[in-house]
């Protein structure tokens, strides 16, 4: 266990199945987390949140199906979803941080996408968590792709 952490993590990354398992964990945590925000805490999702959810939720099922039994073609199905979701997440980030003027953003009056409802530790926002999850999934998928091709 204690001999070499580098070796250990290398071994971990070598295991292609584990990559998909981690992707699935991220997607599931993101899904349950977003449901916690909306259903338990009662924060209404704005339009852009909904688009990000639309591309995150199916990833839970896609990765799950790819893990049992192992499906090496999972990249083809998961990657497009993750990329589109990532784009919405980045767009959302630009809207609420003011880079895109409010008049251009497609939100309804009820729930503004530009309003920040929640800040964990003072700076972590929901769209930021979304960008992080999508980015992690995309990177892991790219590593997975490289490993399955070689």
């Amino acid at each position, binding site marked *: 266990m204690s001999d070499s952490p580098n070796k250990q993590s290398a071994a971990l990354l070598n295991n292609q*199945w584990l990559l998909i398992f981690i992707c699935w964990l991220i997607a599931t*945590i993101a899904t349950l987390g977003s449901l*916690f925000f909306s259903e338990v805490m009662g924060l209404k999702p704005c339009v852009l949140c909904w688009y990000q959810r639309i591309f995150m939720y199916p990833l839970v099922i896609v990765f799950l199906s790819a893990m049992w039994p192992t499906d090496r073609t999972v990249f083809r199905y998961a990657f497009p979803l993750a990329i589109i979701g990532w784009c919405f997440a980045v767009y959302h980030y630009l809207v609420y941080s003011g880079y895109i003027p409010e008049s251009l953003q497609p939100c309804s009056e009820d729930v503004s996408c530009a309003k920040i409802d929640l800040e964990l530790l003072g700076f972590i926002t929901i769209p930021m968590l979304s960008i992080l999850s999508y980015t992690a999934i995309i990177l892991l998928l790219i590593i997975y792709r490289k490993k399955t091709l070689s």
Partner: protein
Amino acid sequence: MKKLSIIITALLVLLSVFAVASYVYKQEKADQAGENAQKNASVLVRDYSPTLGNKEAKVTIVEFFDPACGTCSAFYPLVKQLMSEHPGKINLVLRYLPLHPNSDVIVSIFEAARLQGKFWQTLERAYTTQQAWIEHHTARPEQFWLQLGVLGLDMERLNTDMQSPEVARRVQQDLQDAQQLNVRKTPGFFVNGKPLIEFGYQQLRQLVQSEIKATE
């Protein structure tokens, strides 16, 4: 098989974390809501608030309502039924929380009808004819006006009375009190000052019954 057990374990762990976190969060919120209601008990009822039932009853239901709210309309007969199941034991106090656009105008019609002693009839008329005067979640007072014919109101007087500043003041006061009591949705219920945390008719019924038992 090892992979499958990893997946199942992870799923169970995640779901349990979700369930426990939800439970803890809701419990905390409920405690907060109770404390907040206790702290603001003085604004729960105003001297002008319409009441129904036995004013001396030991159990008081305070309902924040919006005339344009479909759930309020569905709850109205249920609350009345609850009152008739326990005759003389429940006092109902209504507070205004007109959240829909133009709904405050409907409230001012209620207040004006009240001066002619027809508050409850007008309220019931509003609930039963909601379909006729609500369009796209917006109240149409002129459409509701057409529904008032059967009530035998002095319409001219009604028109003058509903413009009175006192009516507007009451609506404003109720909106302010709702905010202080943290009522954001209608109908919002309090039974003897205790907020109905989990919304639903059965929950309301249980809360009322436990309060009746407690006072007997």
